[in-house]
């Protein structure tokens, strides 16, 4: 009730998720991934879906992307119902194999711009180069993906997502497969990019620490099936108060596992 009165005073949400139940059909049975999950993402939100494995956070993200149809509830992006995948919601996957191996870095970033016929070749090239520069890979523009490290591949995927300037960027544990040091650098870079362009991002992670660092808003999901446990503000980025950080981490931990 209280949530309803709060959101009504706000502007129209960018992404509106209302009572979504997701189910997977395996050969033997039907598995419920999430149960009546609702939340709203506003422009320039760094909205984090946080929960242990099995809470359906990745399924939720795939459903927002349009790969998965809910059995109950609806997704609305700027008031339009989401029914299929589309370039207004660019995905950044966890897997390193998300880049097309037969295209160079530049071509990979240009390709969705051309495939959607959004820009002409010369404009697409200019924009792709700008975003490749933003992620610090200008010297690798002509390299093929297999010659890049994991962190560089993820940077290209992020540049590719951002170059499309989508309504919302969907990130499915994009740094989970990276080593700890690279992960920290990538988190800082993502925040720096956000400072630059203020894009909206829906970010899935299972790391409490990453959620607090990346997000301004955190949705906690309980496991089997995923249900909303809490939705809360993260800590302000400017004041890395160690005590507050520890307190929030413990609080989230208690909410998820108590």
């Amino acid at each position, binding site marked *: 009730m209280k949530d309803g009165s709060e959101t009504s005073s706000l502007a129209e949400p960018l992404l509106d998720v209302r009572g979504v139940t997701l189910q997977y059909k395996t050969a033997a049975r039907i598995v419920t991934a999430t149960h009546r999950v609702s939340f709203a993402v506003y422009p320039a939100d760094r909205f984090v879906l946080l929960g242990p494995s099995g809470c359906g956070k990745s399924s939720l993200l795939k459903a927002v992307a349009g790969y998965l149809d809910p059995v109950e509830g609806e997704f609305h992006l700027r008031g339009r119902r989401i029914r299929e995948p589309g370039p207004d919601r660019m995905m950044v996957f966890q897997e390193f*194999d998300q880049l097309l191996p037969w295209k160079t870095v530049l071509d990979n970033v240009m390709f969705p711009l051309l*495939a959607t016929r959004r820009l002409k070749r010369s404009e697409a090239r200019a924009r792709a180069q700008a975003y490749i520069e933003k992620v610090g890979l200008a010297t690798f523009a002509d390299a093929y993906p297999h010659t890049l490290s994991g962190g560089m591949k993820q940077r290209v995927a992020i540049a590719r997502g951002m170059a499309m300037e989508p309504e919302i960027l969907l990130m499915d544990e994009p740094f989970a497969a990276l080593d700890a040091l690279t992960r920290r650098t990538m988190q800082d870079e993502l925040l720096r990019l956000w400072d630059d362009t203020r894009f909206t991002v829906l970010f899935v992670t299972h790391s409490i620490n990453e959620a607090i660092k990346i997000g301004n808003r955190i949705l906690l999901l309980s496991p089997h099936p995923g249900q909303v446990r809490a939705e809360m503000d993260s800590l302000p980025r400017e004041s890395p108060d160690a005590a507050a950080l520890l307190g929030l981490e413990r609080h989230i931990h208690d909410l998820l596992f108590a």
Partner: protein
Amino acid sequence: MNTMLTTPPARPNVEHQVVAFTDADLIERPIPAWERIWNQGWVRKAVLLVLLAAIWEAYARYLDDDLLFPTFSDTIDAFAANVANGVLPARALASIKVLLMGYAAGAALATVLSVLAINVRIGNDLLETLTSMLNPLPAIALLPLALLWFGLGNGSLVFVLIHSVLWVVALNMHAGFRGVSPTLRMVGRNYGLRGLRYVAAILIPAAFPSILTGLKVGWAFAWRTLIAAELVFGVSSGAGGLGWFIFENKNQLEIPSVFAGLLSVILIGLAVENLVFRTLESRTVRRWGMQH
């Protein structure tokens, strides 16, 4: 034995200065010339070919029977003579022309079938049923039927060629499509690609290693079928191919020429494998890091 648990010794924290290297400090050892030459694939293969030719020559001389097994040098003489008088190039050209027609048609049909199979379930059933039925059927077995339907001409040759190429290419292409990683599929759909654009922009490049294998095997099958078919019903539409050349010379007991005909088949096979397919491979799947 010491009953106490061993603990590692306490050590102080230390810091080291990193030495800056310049290019001049980096030690580089040049690779010896012979090793560089031996590292070239074509050199190694050429050595193997020379070795095989030497064994052939030695065995043929030992046997000393021109009718059964002419020497390498006789074969080369016959080959040079037949190239010089223009017979062999004309025959090879005739064969290659028919071969390319059948091969292209077979590969195109295979693409249609595989695309259908990956998009619709009934297409998948169709492809699986057709390949399991027709793939084991030797193309030569269809030849009598083809002659009945299309007569003595290139039509029946093209028909059996399509049969020999279609199923193996379709099988490999379909397996390749099915092996495309789910992430890449989702990436393609994320861009809003669908239908033929999705197939052309995502599925075909992603499945290219398998497609290439299919095309290579299909090429070999096509050659075998063509030569065999020409041997069986010989001259068609005036100008026979290499198979007919071999058959003709056997009848005239020109055994070195028979070997020269076989040699041309081998040479064309080597050329296509090493020039066409190798180039295609290095420009695509190797460059993309899909094959090493």
